[in-house]
């Protein structure tokens, strides 16, 4: 029973309503990062948090819906990158469920794994869309250097994405972990699907 519940597609209302809130958190994270002129995007805090709270399916849905919404509000190219957000949601959900996101070290490792997955999913899209670039100055500088030194495109592009993703995803995972840790149990229990009603009769 417990084993199945991580992948259960039957979501309760609380988990469903968590999705728009998580997308909103992503959006606000990005706005605050922009307003404070921080050098990172910080735009997947909600996805990771939702994945921790309600599992990989909700995490994946958050990621997908996040980018669909970005597609409608900022840049239609985001639709295509929904795939990498889905990857982030699934990985975070699975790792959190397996209890890997406990403590600082666990979160950093989780962040690194998330960054790798995001890179694996995004790189082919980057290559198909932009010949391998990401649009980030530092990443693209590395890409240029690699290209000029005859690296294969997939490697140059992968490294480009990775240098951008590692600091961002590690930071985001740490922030999500910090918030998750402080959440009252009364709230987090609502998103679990396997509660039963005890009888007092």
């Amino acid at each position, binding site marked *: 029973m417990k084993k199945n519940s991580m992948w259960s597609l039957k979501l309760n209302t609380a988990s469903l309503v968590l999705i728009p809130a998580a997308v909103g958190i992503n959006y606000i994270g990005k706005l605050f990062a922009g307003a404070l002129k921080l050098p990172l995007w910080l735009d997947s805090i909600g996805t990771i948090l939702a994945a921790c709270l309600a599992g990989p399916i909700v995490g994946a849905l958050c990621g997908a819906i996040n980018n669909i919404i970005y597609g409608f509000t900022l840049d239609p190219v985001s639709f295509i990158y929904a795939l990498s957000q889905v990857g982030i949601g699934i990985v975070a959900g699975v790792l959190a469920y397996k209890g890997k996101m406990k403590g600082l070290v666990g979160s950093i490792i989780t962040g690194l794994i998330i960054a790798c997955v995001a890179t694996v999913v995004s790189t082919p899209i980057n290559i198909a869309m932009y010949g391998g670039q990401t649009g980030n100055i530092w990443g693209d500088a590395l890409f240029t250097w690699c290209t000029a030194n005859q690296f294969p495109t997939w490697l140059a592009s992968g490294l480009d994405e990775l240098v951008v993703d590692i600091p961002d995803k590690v930071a985001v995972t740490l922030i999500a972990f910090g918030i998750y840790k402080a959440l009252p149990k009364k709230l987090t*229990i609502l998103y679990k699907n396997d509660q039963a*009603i005890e009888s007092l009769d």
Partner: protein
Amino acid sequence: MAKIVVEHLKYRYPLTDELALKDISFTIEPGEFIGIIGENNAGKSTLCQALVGIIPNFYKGAYGGKVFIDDLEVAKHSISEVCRKVGIVFQNPFNQVTGSKLTVYEEIAFGLENMGLSRTEMMERIDYSLKLLDIYQYKDRNPFDLSGGQMQRMAIASIIAMRPEVIILDEPTSQLDPQGSEEVFRAVQSLSQEGISILMVEHKMEKIAAYSDRVMLLKDGKMVAFDTPQKVFSLENLEQYGVNAPAFTRICKKLGIKNQKNGCYPVTLEEAEGAINLLKNGGIADE
């Protein structure tokens, strides 16, 4: 019209040790207006949510006893079935807006679409409830552009459209300004005149005294009193239960003015006015 029967209701939230409701039993007749009072954490909201099945079906936890709305046993049915008979309105109007609809009209339709009603039936019910709550003129507005009072009336209208036989209002005015609260109280009165049973949790004791047929006083998850407002507000140890009687009752208590017929203190503006006038014109105070 539905009758509510609660038998030995007990409930404990998940992850807590103490019962939030401790063996509560009562019966409410069809069409009654019930005021529920008590201090914070007395169990008022928990009781409200138990009547709709949010407790135990949303929160889980530990549950005992039975709640019947007519012959429907609440805990044994899903919330979506129970909500056809009992509607509930909460304190914060913002959090009750679905957020997925762009106009007030569509917002009201949300519950009706879920019930699977036909279009014509929906439109008829929406028009009726918008007019009953006096917000028909805002039907094309975005729900979030309404004032607090209007938004709360929209929340009530969206419940009314589902034609429940009982409506529960959990502090419906505490987030509103005086004008907004007045709008909501007037709306609640018109519901009561339609014959709908009403249970209302409220901290404004003057309002409770003015509207209620009976008042239920809770303390620490137990029902302490359930009687007419005059009887409940005349209780000597009321403050011990974290409740302050209406200003009118407190004045009359201090002046020792009791209603000769039932031996209770006046609880409303009108009763107090009458009693004090009587005193001035030669009536006798106890002191």
